[in-house]
């Protein structure tokens, strides 16, 4: 799909994107850039990808009209149930696609970074499925706060390598993955979000686009119209939002809302609300909006949610923000927790902490009675039970 939100030949979305990589990575990135579109668009890939998504991942995921949530907020609120995917989040849409690309390129060793561990689990899963070697880099802090996912990755046969530099979270796991990639150019870096050097942001967006592709026909069935009024998704790097927005970006009548993690509050000094706190800069090979100090040193972000604890945002989202195509909102730790408890109590769905941020903006919105809202329920909350239990009585 060619749209004004597609990258140009150098991988730019407006002024954002590009491939700011050391020469050491050039051959790897070039190989992928030369091949990814052709592979993704081939019949062979599409057949295998769609068949795995159906029979292995369990797609299409339901589009569920959340009646009690709708009643409470006075709108028609649909939940796109990415939490029902195999491995519990949208991340697997991307890993299934990329593992097929890796195989096509003849790669046998896979590396990945992970924040909350969802991408790590999804990568370890497809590596187990394909019999490929898997190494996942994860911040030491995240290894502690996402223990169930660490156990899953290990059980799936992946090697989990702690990232001990910086804030010991997603940013640092990504640094370590990239350093490993430089030293082991034969490996395939299966990146987990719409971040990194071109073509990674575009490739991941295309693989997550299945979310909005399904939303279109599901909404048509349920409401008679393909387009909702509003789509809400949380944004760390931004892969679930990219997937949920993808086929609607050119339909200007569909309101797109990206929700960032405000941590303890946007101006508290403990936040990950990149669009509000960041300026143009380069992180992980991409020019984007970035939290940094006056000398360009990257600032350590903070969020209760390991998956949103990232000081940048994918270049597509930086462009959606700058061009005002998407509205960027944010939710604090506390607001996200409240929203998670609420969804659990009134709909019987325990969302991931990341996803809870998307739900948390509902009380802040001026919703109309007939407004059709789709919230991308990007992941389930099993991995966050410890945090939920800890805060339950507070």
């Amino acid at each position, binding site marked *: 799909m060619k749209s004004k939100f597609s990258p140009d030949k150098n991988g730019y979305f407006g002024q954002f994107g590009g491939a700011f990589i050391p020469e050491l990575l*050039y051959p790897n990135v070039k190989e992928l850039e030369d091949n990814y579109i052709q592979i993704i668009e081939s019949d062979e890939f599409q057949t295998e990808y769609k068949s795995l998504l159906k029979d292995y991942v369990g797609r299409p995921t339901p589009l569920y009209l959340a009646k009690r949530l709708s009643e409470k907020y006075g709108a028609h609120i649909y939940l796109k149930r990415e939490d029902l995917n195999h491995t519990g989040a949208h991340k697997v849409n991307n890993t299934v696609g990329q593992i097929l690309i890796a195989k096509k390129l003849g790669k046998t060793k896979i590396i990945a970074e992970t924040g909350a561990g969802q991408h790590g689990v999804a990568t370890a899963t497809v590596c187990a499925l394909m019999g490929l070697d898997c190494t996942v880099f994860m911040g030491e802090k995240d290894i502690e706060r996402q223990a169930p996912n660490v156990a899953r990755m290990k059980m799936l046969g992946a090697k989990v390598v702690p990232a001990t530099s910086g804030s010991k979270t997603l940013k640092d796991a990504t640094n370590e993955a990239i350093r490993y990639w*430089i030293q082991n150019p034969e490996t395939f870096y299966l990146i987990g979000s719409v971040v990194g050097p071109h073509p990674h942001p575009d490739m991941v967006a295309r693989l997550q686009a299945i979310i909005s592709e399904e939303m279109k026909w599901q909404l048509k069935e349920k409401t008679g119209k393909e387009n909702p009024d509003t789509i809400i998704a949380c944004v760390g790097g931004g892969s679930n939002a990219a997937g949920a927005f993808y086929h609607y970006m050119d339909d200007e009548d569909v309101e797109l809302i990206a929700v960032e993690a405000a941590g303890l509050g946007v101006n508290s000094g403990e936040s990950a609300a990149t669009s509000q706190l960041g300026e143009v800069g380069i992180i*992980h090979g991409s020019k984007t909006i970035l939290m940094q100090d006056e000398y*360009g040193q990257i600032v350590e972000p903070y969020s209760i949610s390991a998956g949103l604890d990232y000081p940048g945002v994918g270049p597509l989202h930086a462009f959606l923000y700058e061009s005002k195509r998407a509205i960027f909102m944010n939710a604090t730790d506390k607001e996200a927790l409240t929203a998670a408890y609420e969804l659990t109590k009134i709909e019987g769905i325990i969302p991931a902490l990341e996803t809870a941020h998307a739900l948390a903006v509902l009380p802040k919105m001026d919703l109309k009675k007939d407004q059709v809202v789709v919230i991308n329920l990007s992941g389930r909350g099993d991995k966050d039970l410890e945090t939920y239990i800890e805060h339950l009585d507070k």
Partner: protein
Amino acid sequence: MNSIQQLFQQKDKNLLSIYFTCGFPKLDDTTKVIAALEKSKVDFIEVGLPYSDPLADGPTIQDSSHKALQNGINLDIVFEQLMTIKETNKTPLVLMGYLNQMLKYGEDKFCEKVIDCGIDTVIIPDLPMVEFENHYQLLFDKYGLTNVFLITPNTEQERIKKIDRYTKAFIYVVASSSITGAKGEISKEQIAYFKRIKAMNLKSKLIVGFGISDKSTFNTACQFANGAIIGSAFIKNLDKNGVDKIDDFIQPILN
């Protein structure tokens, strides 16, 4: 003429360059390290700008950068420090930093300051060729700056030839597919790669870096190139033995 080109006119074999991190081990060590390296007759010096997320650097340089930042180093302080030795220091300096530092500081302001400090050569490992062609070439030309390109064992011949055409100072020959940090020895594959590059008869001078740590690896690299850069091994020594013992590290390599 570029300061490095001038250097090559006087000497084009066995050039020793040392990389160090500004503001390390102490904030005001930047100029002391440069003075000590000059006294030890190092041929040119790579002045490293500490960065929070140095993707191309191994643990030693990451660690020194982290400590330097904790010491309170920043670009303004680095430029102030370098200004104080502008008249006295005669050893060519090459500035090495990451693109975001330049971007955030302001590209024009950055270039002006670098030239003000008497430096005309920069190494920016995450500045790719396409961005150089589309934007930075003009910017650098405007200020009389030149940047150094890196080549690796996986860089294709055609690309190397292009880099050769763009090069005004030297080509940085990355010894292996690696981030910075000493490996201890040079393998047969690396020697084959050095030979392959040498056989291309490029117009540019070649300086080998990444994995050069001592006299033996330095001498091997110099058989195929005009010189070599030592970074991590120097930082380790500096951390352990301090600024006063710099000469003890350099002399065994030069003699």
